């Protein structure tokens, strides 16, 4: 993918979206990798839910998340209290930069030089690796996909499968170039080699950094879902474990986790359960043999509390990061994750990122959808993604005087010409006489219809105006 996709994902040029899309659409490797992977994931999800009353389960999931969000401030207080009782140190971060500083300070206090990381999208959001490196701390990704992406100097192209844009050949070449492994198409061999490299790092890492899937307020438990065991290692081998999480990940109690977990693994990878499900409830106790001496949680806001202020936009925070929306998105499937140029790609990225980077920088995001609704249909917590896309489109052009826009950077996409076109369109279509006159004229003058209509006729013939409008036909018929 292009250079811009690989660095500073938060500060991409919005004009780059189309060039990147163009590049991806004309890259057979990208097209093939994504299509194949997404087809597989869609099939797996479907069969994982066979025999389940999926609609009821989705309702349950949505309600669990809505109830948690309705009590978010109280739950966060309860969570802090319980975590503290469990011996976990709680930190609050307003934004990514503050969260990075907190992690660095913890590392500094322990004189830590190396950090091993489990998979965490919030840490991507924070650009933690880059920050730590700039401050002399080595951060190494231990999730295989993240490890590959890190070796390649890229960012994840999918929130669950970060290296899904690469095929075995590309990964083999990368591992060969960067770590000296033999070139091979044997996935077992490549995985074993990477595992060996990572094992050594685990043993020597000073600090482990992980994400969190669910933070349980009632018990002060951090839940972590993973398949490779690297999450278990990250959170237990180093002497210090730092979990970073968005503030919206809190749920009231463990019972809530059962519904969300059932939905998460099936929606994400089509698994009934992941290989590992970690429940972290504190540092190593005196009588225990292993586990870290210190456990920290960094609760990151980074724009979430402003999303929380709006009753409709609030639904964005229901997300449990399963990635099903991107797996089913016809746009994502074709352009891949890097085209978006944002930490979170695909449908969830389109409704979440504008809040994180502003609608000025992210103004290409809400429009990059045909509003087909596949994302909303599969969302395990029923986020009305298409409705939120329309809302953000409105915000991006300041298009509703009754409901003034409020997202940071709103109105950035409004331009005088387009606004004038819609005004004219509205004027004509709100006046039946003008409309009938206009459409009748168009029908009569149809021979003058332009043969070229921009992007439309690049791929299609232009639609042919009928010689007589439907209105006119029916009028003659006496209707």
């Amino acid at each position: 993918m292009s250079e811009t996709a690989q660095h500073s994902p938060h500060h991409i040029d919005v004009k780059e979206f189309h060039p990147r899309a163009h590049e991806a659409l004309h890259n057979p490797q990208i097209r093939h990798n994504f299509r194949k992977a997404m087809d597989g994931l869609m099939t797996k999800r479907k069969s994982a839910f066979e025999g389940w009353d999926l609609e009821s389960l989705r309702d349950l999931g949505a309600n669990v998340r809505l109830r948690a969000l309705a009590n978010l401030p109280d739950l966060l207080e309860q969570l802090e209290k319980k975590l503290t009782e469990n011996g976990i140190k709680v930190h609050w971060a307003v934004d990514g930069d503050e969260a990075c500083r907190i992690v660095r300070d913890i590392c500094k206090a322990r004189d830590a030089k190396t950090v091993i990381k489990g998979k965490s999208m919030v840490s991507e959001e924070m650009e933690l690796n880059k920050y730590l490196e700039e401050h002399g701390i080595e951060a190494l990704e231990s999730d295989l996909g993240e490890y590959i992406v890190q070796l390649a100097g890229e960012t994840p192209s999918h929130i669950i499968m970060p290296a899904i844009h690469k095929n075995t050949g590309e990964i083999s070449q990368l591992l060969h170039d960067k770590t000296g492994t033999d070139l091979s198409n044997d996935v077992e061999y490549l995985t074993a080699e990477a595992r060996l490299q990572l094992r050594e790092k685990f043993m020597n890492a000073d600090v482990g950094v992980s994400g969190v899937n669910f933070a349980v307020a009632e018990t002060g438990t951090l839940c972590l879902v993973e398949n490779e065991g690297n999450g278990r290692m990250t959170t237990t081998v180093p002497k210090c474990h730092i979990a970073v999480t968005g503030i919206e990940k809190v749920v009231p109690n463990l019972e809530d986790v059962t519904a969300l977990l059932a939905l998460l693994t099936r929606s994400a990878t089509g698994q009934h359960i992941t290989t590992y499900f970690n429940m972290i409830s504190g540092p190593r106790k005196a009588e225990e043999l292993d586990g870290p001496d210190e456990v920290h949680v960094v609760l990151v806001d980074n724009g979430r509390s402003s999303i929380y202020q709006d009753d409709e936009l609030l639904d964005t925070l229901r997300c449990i990061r399963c990635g099903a929306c991107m797996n089913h998105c016809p746009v994502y499937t074709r352009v891949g994750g890097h085209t978006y140029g944002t930490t979170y790609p695909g449908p969830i990225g389109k409704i979440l990122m504008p809040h994180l980077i502003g609608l000025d920088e992210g103004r290409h995001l809400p429009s990059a959808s045909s509003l087909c609704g596949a994302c909303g249909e599969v969302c395990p917590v029923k986020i009305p993604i298409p409705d939120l896309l329309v809302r953000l489109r409105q915000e991006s052009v300041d298009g509703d005087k009754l409901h003034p826009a409020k997202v940071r950077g709103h109105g950035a996409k409004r331009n005088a010409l387009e606004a004038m076109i819609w005004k004219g369109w509205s004027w004509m279509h709100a006046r039946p006489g003008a409309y009938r006159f206009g459409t009748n004229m168009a029908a009569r003058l149809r021979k003058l219809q332009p043969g070229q209509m921009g992007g439309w006729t690049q791929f299609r013939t232009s639609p042919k105006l009928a010689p007589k409008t439907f209105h006119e036909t029916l009028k003659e018929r006496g209707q």
Partner: protein
Amino acid sequence: MADPIKLYPPKPSKVYFFGTCLVDMFYPDAGMAGIQLLEREGIEVIFPQDQTCCGQPAFTSGYHDEARAVAKAQLGLFPEDYPIVVPSGSCGGMMRKHYPGLFKDTEDEILAAEVAGRVWELTDFLLNVCHIKLTDKGEPTTVAMHTSCSARREMGVAEVGPKLLGQLDNVNLVEQVRAEECCGFGGTFAIRHPEISGAMVSEKVDALVDTGARDFVTTDCGCLMNIHGYAEKNRKAMSGQHILSFLWNRTGGGKGEQS
């Protein structure tokens, strides 16, 4: 998303017909087929001449003030208690699902919700309200069908088209791979993101051609214009028509006795 339970009204004696702007200017035959199918079922069809457009293009582009002004001009056109039938899942979806929100906190809030509650996608109405029974009078043929995303997901009528086509004895309906995937139209999406839309429609046409059918039908003029237009420009052996035209022609309407 589709309502969990849809309560169909009893078959009425009269309906309002909302033709849509695409039917008006590009596909009046599809609208006429819809009207004639309804009339054959013994229903009187009222076409308010003051109708224009549901307002969707401006709505999905974010210009909600402009969309509201156009939608408001439609709200008063259906004073009697008759169902409002629409030959499109997309425009039907706009009216049924989005009018209430668009007029929330305005003086038209109640009227908008009332109108929205009477809106039906026309094929759904024919099958589930009129309980139409179709008699095929055409030669044996094979067709594929593309159900629009709004018909499928907003109006929840994905099963309706295949059921109607299933009533036609000489029609062999074949299904393309990834039938539920969007064709790439998406209204202004096709103009704003032409290359992505182009990639989507090209794969849709390939999937349709791979079924072996040479004709496809669809519930929505937007998809029709997109898929047929791509096939035509790229000389693919695939030609489309609105499902209403197809049903009317197959069952003895139109000029000949076959499509």
